[in-house]
């Protein structure tokens, strides 16, 4: 085992989980933290924090600022809360371009406005050249938990349906394509978006939604493995029902990626009661951020802790937790 931090420790896969369970949790252990959801529930409030270090800083469909606001808004929303107030901490590298900073701040303000949240406190630090990569942003957020909603792995049971709010892998594709010399059509861009509106509409038609997660780092594969483990259930997906853009599939073919492991920044996974699946999908389809929502699988009582994928020829293969950083492979 390595005695140094590797890039894979930050990739949302197995090494990230190991870091969390071996270093972080033992040090800070308490009941609220132990829930390990995207946000913490404290009385009637929800709280969350996240740091953003994306490269490139500006990408098709967004920038680091939009990402930082959306990420925290979405983490609060999937906790079952209405996001209200955000803090913003910015670490700037000496020599960073003023115009770039203005653009980033403007984009944060615009998306905060769209999401109906206020940025109420913040901090700025400047470090010497080479001590940071342009700009790093941390956001934290507080929201109000919605009465009668309880998003918790404990509520998940066999027979429930698994929904996803749209096409998978768009964000990772927009970021990775540029890094690897691929040129995408205009239509493919990061899905970075605030999902609080969509989630509120879903919870309005069905407050008993058992689980909501945003499928960011590690993609659908990581989120569903975490859910299956936390709830001690199996999750069986139907490969043909998972919405993926043609171009995203193309990038996966070219770089050897598995689309289930690609990061999203505007997609949620929901585990919902079977009998309200249709009406939830109907409200999702009405929302711009849920128009491609689909039923992709179900919760089963067997194979606890595992995620399976039924393939086009009827075999079922395991969808494992991603192991680490996404690197293009040629083998």
């Amino acid at each position: 085992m390595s005695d140094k931090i590797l890039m894979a420790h930050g990739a949302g896969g197995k090494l990230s989980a190991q870091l969390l369970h071996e270093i972080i949790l033992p040090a800070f252990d308490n009941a609220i933290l132990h829930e390990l959801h995207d946000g913490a529930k404290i009385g009637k409030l929800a709280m969350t924090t996240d740091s953003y270090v994306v490269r490139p800083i500006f990408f098709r469909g967004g920038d680091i600022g939009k990402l930082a606001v959306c990420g925290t808004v979405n983490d609060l929303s999937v906790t079952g809360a209405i996001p209200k107030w955000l803090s913003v901490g910015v670490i700037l590298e000496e020599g960073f371009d003023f115009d770039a900073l203005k653009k980033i701040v403007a984009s944060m303000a615009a998306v905060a406005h769209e999401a109906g949240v206020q940025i109420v406190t913040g901090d700025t630090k400047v470090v010497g050249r080479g001590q940071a990569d342009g700009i790093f942003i941390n956001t934290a957020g507080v929201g109000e938990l919605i009465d009668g909603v309880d998003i918790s792995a404990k509520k998940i049971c066999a027979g429930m349906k698994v929904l996803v709010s749209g096409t998978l892998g768009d964000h990772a594709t927009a970021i990775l394509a540029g890094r690897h010399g691929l040129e995408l059509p205009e239509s493919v861009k990061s899905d970075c978006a605030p999902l609080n509106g969509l989630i509120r509409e879903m919870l309005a038609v069905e407050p008993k939604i058992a689980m909501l997660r945003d499928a960011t780092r590690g993609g659908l594969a990581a989120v569903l493995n975490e859910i299956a483990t936390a709830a001690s259930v199996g999750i069986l997906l139907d490969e043909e029902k998972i919405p993926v853009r043609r171009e995203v599939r193309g990038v996966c073919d070219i770089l050897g990626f598995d689309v289930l492991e690609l990061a999203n920044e505007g997609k949620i996974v929901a585990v919902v009661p079977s009998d309200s699946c249709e009406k939830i999908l109907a409200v999702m389809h009405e929302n711009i951020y849920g128009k491609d929502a689909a039923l992709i699988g179900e919760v089963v009582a067997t194979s606890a802790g595992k995620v399976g994928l039924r393939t086009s020829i009827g075999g079922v293969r395991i969808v494992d937790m991603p192991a680490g950083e996404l690197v293009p492979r040629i083998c």
Partner: protein
Amino acid sequence: MCLAYPAKVLRIDGELATVERAGVKRSASLMLLPEAKVGDYVLIHAGFAMQVVDEREVQIRDALVAEMNGAPRTVELAGVS
């Protein structure tokens, strides 16, 4: 080893081609496949075009697959395969 994918040749500039797969474009070297022409589908591996995809064989394969999925036998093509 050896992930490779078919892509269409859009442009050729000396030894370098622009190829497209599923709407995604990238450049690929034609050093190993000098006979490739604009409009050909070529197999790409590690940034190099490796072979021209035989369109006639693609039709034969697709007909065979369709047949396996329950489509009626395509007599003419079945004879070739």
